[in-house]
């Protein structure tokens, strides 16, 4: 698919067809990870010169020598630097969900020698936004039917919060709200014209139901002690990505709190893309739906004929 530019539309189609056919014939066991080149890593929005190397968990040994620890009380302002263990998540045919580790350190910490943590870290991972429709059933003539619905223009398909302590202990509601932290702050704008037949309290109920159902699907998660400090400066948080995470980039925001105020933030992005056989099938199905349909039928005919021949032979 990468060389498709020169070949044009039908060349690409033929390529996809051939690859899909070949892979399907080899059998369902093929875990096409051969599509080679990993996704281009999006540059993180915050550039951290001293950031730990990627794909490496914060080594325990690093505890003894924090890189930028400035034990001066009135030194430069503290900040947070972080990275993610995996910059790109590949959704292949064997994808069953994964986890990413967000790790980093506090630089220029005010009291590096303190035994008690004065800092709090909140990690927010937000998936790609999608339109979402929430529906409500009610009983009509004894049967439960969807009678009301509300469409939200764009809702994060995935939203995970991890923090060193429960959020309400870290900061008060206003600070959290100003920084878009928490399920209540998930941006959910109803489409224009939603007011017809729906009251403001209905809107609230639809919102809450959508968040509740997302939580039930494991797509909205909150882990109140999900961020742990390793020593005084280093922290790490493990974020679960279940298998049903909609494919798209994941925005990661890391907040550094001190005494209930945000004193530093750091943003980075994790790309997530289909790869291998999974990617070919998806492209085929959505970009050439007619040919995909014909191909599926031909596969079905072939499967039926092969099966009957095999069983006929086995009987004789």
């Amino acid at each position, binding site marked *: 698919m990468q060389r498709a530019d020169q070949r044009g539309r039908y060349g690409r189609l033929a390529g996809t067809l051939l690859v899909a056919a070949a892979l*399907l014939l080899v059998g*369902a066991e093929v875990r096409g990870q051969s599509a080679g080149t990993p996704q281009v890593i999006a540059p993180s929005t915050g550039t951290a010169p001293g950031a730990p190397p990627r794909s490496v968990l914060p080594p325990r040994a690093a505890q003894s020598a924090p890189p930028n620890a400035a034990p001066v009380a009135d030194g430069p302002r503290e900040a947070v630097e972080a990275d993610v263990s995996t910059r790109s998540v590949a*959704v*292949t*045919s*064997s*994808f*069953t969900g994964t986890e990413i580790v967000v790790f980093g350190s506090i630089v220029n910490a005010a009291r590096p020698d303190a035994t008690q943590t004065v800092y709090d870290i909140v990690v927010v991972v937000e998936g790609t*936004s*999608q*339109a*979402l*429709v*929430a*529906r*409500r*059933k*009610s009983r009509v003539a*004894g*049967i*439960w*039917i*969807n009678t009301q*619905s509300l*469409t*939200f*223009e*764009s809702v994060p398909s995935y939203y995970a919060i991890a923090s060193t302590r429960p959020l309400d202990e870290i900061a008060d509601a206003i600070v959290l709200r100003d920084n878009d932290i928490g399920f209540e702050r998930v941006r959910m704008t109803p*489409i224009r014209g939603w007011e017809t037949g729906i009251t403001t309290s209905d809107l609230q109920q*639809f919102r809450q*139901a*959508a968040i*509740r*159902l*997302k939580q039930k699907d494991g797509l909205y998660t909150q882990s109140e002690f999900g961020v742990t400090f390793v020593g005084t400066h280093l922290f790490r948080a493990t974020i679960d990505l279940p*298998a*049903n995470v*909609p*494919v798209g980039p994941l925005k990661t925001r890391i907040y550094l709190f001190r005494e209930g105020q945000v004193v530093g933030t750091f943003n980075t992005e994790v790309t997530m893309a*289909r790869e291998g056989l*999974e990617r070919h*099938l*998806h492209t085929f*199905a959505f970009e050439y*739906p*007619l040919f*995909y*349909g014909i*191909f*599926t*039928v031909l*596969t*079905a*005919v072939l*499967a*039926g*004929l092969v*099966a*009957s021949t095999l*069983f006929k032979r086995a009987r004789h």
Partner: protein
Amino acid sequence: MHFYLPIAEMSANMLVFLGMGAAVGFLSGLFGVGGGFLMTPLLIFSGIPAAVAVGTEAAQIVASSVSGAIAQWRRKNVDLAMGTVLLVGGVIGSFFGVEVVRILRQAGQFEFAVSLSYVTFLGIIGALMLVESLSAMRQAKAVPGGAPVRRRARHNWVHGLPLKMRFRRSKLYISAIPPLGIGFLVGVLAAIMGVGGGFIMVPAMIYLLKMPTNVVVGTSLFQIVFVTAATTILHAQQNQTVDIVLALLLMVGGVVGAQFGAVAGERLKGEQLRFLLAGLVLLVALRIAWGLVGTPSELYSIGRGVGGH
């Protein structure tokens, strides 16, 4: 043994769906039915989105009926003229049905429509079959020499319609409208319910069109292969709801299960089989009906909105 399904967008245990295919394949081999009416509800119960279940099941029916259709064709049990008329009606019905699916999905009523059509059709067919098989069993017991066979009326309202055609293999000279209508209904059902439609078509051919029984099965299989093939392509094109990986898993499980089912079926009597099948059909209908009338634990549901990006 997990596999990420590209269209259903979920990670599925391959063994579960292979096993499901085998179980339904066994039953369809045992009873000599397509099995779509069992598979689609099972897929929906197991968490596959209803529209994907319907579209994918159409592809599986192609695989499970193609070899049967070819075998019947070789034995000259297909009335090509009748099959073609049924097919024309079927493809029109499939077009119509796929469009109905698209509209219902947008309105958020597709799951409801699927459930309602299942309850209606399975309820009626199951009840009729139950009554018929019970009376057959009672007659077989009461009069061992065979019950008096009731003569069929030679003419019914079907013979009064215009557009008459000659169907040589069936030895019929009837209007093309009833087979067109039957084909159309079967096409709509294939698109909305993910079934082959044999359970409607076979009784309609015997009782309404009065076709000779030796061409009924072959002709209906002929129609089913082409109509489900058309339905698969239309669903893939219009709704992007055909999951080829899921279809393959079901096909593999299905063909294996069907072989064992066919062997097991040879040991049971026809009316006993029909009685068991009627019971199964009614159970599926009741289970789906319960989903419609029972108070759900969650009144809300969420789905992908339309036109978001």
